[in-house]
């Protein structure tokens, strides 16, 4: 479980096309700037969001993203939920291994995105779809 109180309404963006992945990056950037993340942290979060949004599109067959500003009493941060109702991930450990891919990519999307954020939760199963929640805290 991840701690933290939601601040304000989450902002959502559907992921149905290439162009939506660009929109997700822009949305996450806007929220990260408002949450006063440092430039490097903004860059890491937007990059992670780009990887995960592409996964939602390519492997999940599309879905949606929800971006929320959160506060844990000490720090403010940005939390992003990526949800799809695709086939799910059968072997999570394997999917999180650097260089493993079923899509012809570099196999860095999931594993790389996990390194770029502070918290990473994944809920998936065959036929269940995939929900990934990531959080980056301001320093």
């Amino acid at each position, binding site marked *: 479980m991840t701690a933290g109180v939601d601040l304000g309404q989450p902002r959502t963006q559907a992921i149905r096309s290439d162009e939506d992945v*660009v929109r997700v990056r822009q949305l996450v950037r806007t929220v990260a700037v408002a949450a006063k993340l440092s430039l490097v942290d903004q*860059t890491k979060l*937007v990059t992670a969001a*780009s990887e995960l949004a*592409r996964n939602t599109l390519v492997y999940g067959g599309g879905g949606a993203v929800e971006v929320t500003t959160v506060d844990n009493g000490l720090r403010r941060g940005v939390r992003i939920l990526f949800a799809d109702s695709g086939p799910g991930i059968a072997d999570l450990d394997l999917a999180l291994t650097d260089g493993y891919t079923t899509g012809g990519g*570099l196999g*860095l999307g999931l594993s790389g*995105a996990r390194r*770029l954020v502070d918290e990473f939760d994944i809920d998936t199963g065959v036929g269940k779809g995939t929900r990934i929640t990531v959080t980056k805290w301001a320093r």
Partner: protein
Amino acid sequence: MERVPILKIGDILLVSIQVDMSDQTALQLQEDLAERIVATGCHGVIIDITALDIVDSFVGRMLSTIASISKVLDAETVVVGMRPAVAITLVELGLSLNGIRTALNVERGMELVAAARADESPYDHELADESDEAETTGSP
């Protein structure tokens, strides 16, 4: 879909990426560049990413692929203008950008292309005089 323009300056193709590229735009750029290298016979490709606020694994792979394609087509690729935050993020992401030459700005990129060509040429090329840069760069 947006398309990234490719400019020809002498023996060099210059690509300055000014938009947040969709994956399709990135793939189109890859194809456009390969065609322009062959059509123009240029021996250098400079990709300016100053305006890019992120480089993810897809764009990173595109840069590597462009470098490999250019190499096969007898052109050198130099990626210039990477922001510090982008560099930090790329390393953490795990992207190594194999085979890509980098330079801090377009001017140095052009010098690098010229130097790479001179190294490979069987003839002696006189390099432009680049001695005595009077500017201090702020390093201690």
